[in-house]
């Protein structure tokens, strides 16, 4: 019996000693200079010169700042023909003398001497806003809540992708003029409900400075309304200081839509399945995409009487 007890006690001591051992081990990720990839980021539209920013990717565990590529050679192609070599602006930025044109296919070829990355995209047609309607509602206290309905006339027989957002000032917004650039909504759920079964990435919401006020931005495809007129109603729009709302409707190239989609779905929870960010850069990372823009405005006469 004594032997049995000793065996049990000894086994328990051994077991707990072994379990308390550290089972942590470092894993080496083999990442050399040759594994670095060119990162090419550029979104082009007919209103602007073609601009490209180039950097290198870094090892995931690296703690160093981003390394921009300042010695790259970037060639711009229009419908397969080289039309320009981009000029360096500093900090990995390059600019062309050309503005792209609607419905033409543009390509870039980026080389740092060792690596060569390429990509193509087409400038989509400009979107068509069929009509706009002001939908202001009033609460019991008589306060006005401006709303707007935007009717998009979608082209039949082709896949279209849209991005819709509102601004309170016309033209280019100066950096730092955050409130001039942004329109807020009090309740994003209300907007979700009213936009209906849109094949949208969702309310592409960026949390604003003020609690509970969100910037409105919708990114969606025409999957559910191809070739028809689709009304999108936004309500409880806040801070319409000048009473005029500027509606920006972008048509996106498919690459841009996929990129935005994957960025939007990037998880922020530990248990979430990881998301690969879309890239159309051959032999590299990043995005070379295009959009076209139509801007319309509506005047909100909040208290007509």
């Amino acid at each position, binding site marked *: 019996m004594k032997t049995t007890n000793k065996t049990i006690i000894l086994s328990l001591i051994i077991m707990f000693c072994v379990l308390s051992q550290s089972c*942590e081990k470092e894993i080496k990720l083999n990442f050399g200079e040759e594994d670095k990839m060119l990162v090419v980021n550029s979104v082009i539209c007919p209103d602007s010169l073609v601009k490209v920013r180039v950097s290198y990717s870094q090892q995931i565990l*690296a703690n160093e700042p981003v390394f921009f590529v300042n010695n790259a050679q970037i060639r711009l192609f229009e419908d397969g023909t080289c039309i320009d070599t981009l000029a360096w602006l500093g900090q990995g930025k390059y600019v062309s003398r050309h503005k792209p044109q609607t419905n033409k296919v543009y390509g870039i070829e980026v080389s740092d001497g060792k690596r060569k990355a390429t990509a193509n995209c087409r400038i989509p047609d400009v979107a068509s806003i069929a009509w706009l309607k002001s939908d202001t509602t009033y609460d019991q206290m008589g306060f006005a809540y401006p709303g707007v309905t935007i009717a998009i006339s979608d082209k039949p027989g082709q896949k279209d992708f849209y991005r819709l957002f509102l601004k309170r000032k016309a033209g280019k917004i100066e950096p730092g003029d955050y409130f001039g650039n942004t329109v807020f909504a009090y309740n994003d759920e209300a907007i979700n409900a009213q936009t209906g079964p849109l094949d949208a990435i969702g309310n592409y919401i960026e949390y604003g400075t003020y609690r509970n006020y969100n910037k409105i931005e919708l990114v969606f495809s025409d999957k559910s309304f191809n070739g028809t007129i689709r009304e999108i109603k936004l309500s409880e729009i806040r801070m319409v200081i000048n009473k005029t709302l500027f509606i920006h409707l972008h048509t996106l190239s498919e690459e841009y839509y996929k990129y935005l989609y994957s960025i939007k779905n990037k998880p922020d929870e530990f248990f979430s399945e*990881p998301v*690969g960010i879309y890239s159309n850069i051959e032999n590299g990372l990043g995005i070379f995409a295009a959009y076209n823009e139509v801007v319309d405005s509506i005047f909100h006469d909040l208290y007509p009487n």
Partner: protein
Amino acid sequence: MPKTTRMHHFKLSNMPKLPILVLATFAINLFSTISFSQKVVVSGFVEDKSNGERLTNAVVYLGDNRNHVLTNNYGFYSILAPAGQTEISYSYVGFNTVALSLKLHKDTLVNIRLEPNATLSEVLVTGSKTGKLGKIEIIPSKLKEMPSIMGETDLIKALQYYPGVQSGMEGRSGLYVRGGGPDQNLVLLDGVPVYNVNHLFGFFSIFNPVAISSVSLYKSDIPARYSGYLSSVLDIQMKEGNNKEWKGDFTLGLIASKLTIEGPLKKEKSSVIFSARRTYLDILMAPILAISNKTQGTETMAGYYFQDINLKLNYRLDAKNHLYLSFYTGLDKAYINDKYTLQQTIRDINNLKWGNLTSVLRWNHVFSSKLFSNTHVSYSQYKYQTNIHSTVTMKRPTGGEYSDSYSYRNFSGINSISQNTRADFYLNSVHHLQFGFSNTYFVFTPGSINYEEKIVNDSTLNTKVEYVNANVYAYKANLYVEDQIDLDKLKLNIGAHYSGFLHKGTYYQNFEPRVAMKYLFSDNVNVNLSYTGSAQYIHLVSNSSGGLPTDLWLPVTENVKPATSVQYTAGISYEMKKNYRFSLEAYYKTMDNLLEYKEGASYFTTTDNWENSVTQGKGTAYGLELFVEKKLGKFTGFAGYTLAWAWRKFEDINMGREFPYKFDRRHDMSLVGHYRFNERINLGAVWVYGTGNSITLPTQRYTPLEEFYYKYGQVADILEYYGNKNSYKLPAYHRLDVNINLIKQKMKGIRTWSFGVYNLYNRQNPYLLYVKEMNGQKKLYQRSLFPAVPYFSYNYKF
């Protein structure tokens, strides 16, 4: 308003020509073989002589060994024998074979009792006694001769040593069969589906081997009588109980103890078996907590345990009627209760519990020597519950005390009640028909939260909130027929299963054809071919690798379609001197409408509408399995090797590109050996090797578009580059487990001391990877779960 009816089925044009040809052959053959003469039917039951238990899958041979039948799940057999002098043999692994020479003039009832052979050293687990590929059989009583984790023998882990069957994560009880997921296995306990087979987050399975008589796993060639899941069927039968004398079995292990009592309620007529198992980590922790409480002035009670109770009663009404009542309940419970006093006294009671409950009432009836029926009604439940209760007691300024309290309760689960009728009809020496039907009614509880707050001083402040996802109701109907055709050298199993599923007015139906063919080139070489079509109507919503109690079963809906699969297999089996068996099998499986979380979604984002968080896609799996087995002698064992590929393709995942399945394991190998020195000492060893699991690991980081890179003048976001989904392979998994059993005959029984070590050479197998920052430098680390873990257990059989 008319209800939507969705018809979802295998198109006939999609069926391969082989099954059609075989079906045609079968139809012609069925009628051509009806004319028989000079034959008599020998039928009856095969039982264990020592305890009266009926033996499943015992082999009944006629003279030349070629013509044979297996006993069904209830020990019944029926075989057509030539009239006159005939030899019939009865055999079962671990038992002496009985050969009878009978003079037969008419249909004859022969009940046989086989005697266990304690000295016969046979394989622990066996591929299949009849050389049928795609099926694995395990003898639970022999499992204790194999190494285990912490002394707890586990059925599921034993199955994971077989080619084509993989474990998911280290130590887990999940079954991943031929590229399928852990939710694609139909697990039946005495014919009742079990919805969660895990204890302790999957480190142990719920099946207590002491209470189990037989285990069969079908990886392919799944007979038509089984349906509802894509990848495999695990059919487990509980013991009936000794109907001759009272017996017991007691095991004391490091983390759990087990007790089994069985005996006759009425000798040879009725018996009972009761088995219970409980862990005692909570009891072991109690003194440690007591010391901690004493030194810190707290009152904390915390612990975790799991338990299983199996109970089975059976009663032989007469030679033709037999009633069974079986019951299983299992529970896992983790709890923390504490009390601490500052300016007020706070008392917290927190617990998390989950478990299964199954019960079944079965009636076996022998209509004639050729017709046997089994009817059962059953109930199965799985539920998961979290309870948090807190009471705050404060002193009144005027004296005395008052207390406020709040409680939170979250629960989810699944319940099903079903009727199942099955018949075995031994038409003639060629055809053994099985047919039946079943009806199942499901109640799903997708999740509900109750919150209640009571303020004693002011009842107007009391709060009671309930967030209830309404129960989901569904109905499933099944109808099947299968025929085992024995044409001398050619053995066929042809069947078809019709299944229909109704949920909220949406009706899905599937026709699931099954064809298995075995051709005997000689007495020891046979070739197997099979085709299996399957459909699955309930999905496990989970983003863990299986085993979390929060995993939720939910039915197909109007938007979430039934999953379907088709599997083709071809294999060859060679038996050498009845001692060695070699088999090689290739498979190709396609799966449609598989369910996965969308990228970026998780369990925590599915509380409102789970359908929005999931997506459906396709899967493909193919591979080659090699199996070598030594069945007799002092040394027995087997080696299994699998070369496999498993792929997934979802429109919403990985940009629509194909990617490797999480458990795509290119190489998987097991070596299982058992050496019997003598009656008193035996040694077991298992070595396993597997290619590392596939994970999605970021390897690089890079800048996004400027609109995301800079926000408010600051660097806001850096993107991570993952490459293809699941493209990073973890280091290979391997380990060696050994054990030794010391057996001694005592005055009133047999005692066995078992000693062993899990992961003998202390291999640090990766369990999870994470990044840690030290001195401003980020590093990637892996954590391993089990180092070398010694264990012992003590068993006494009386």
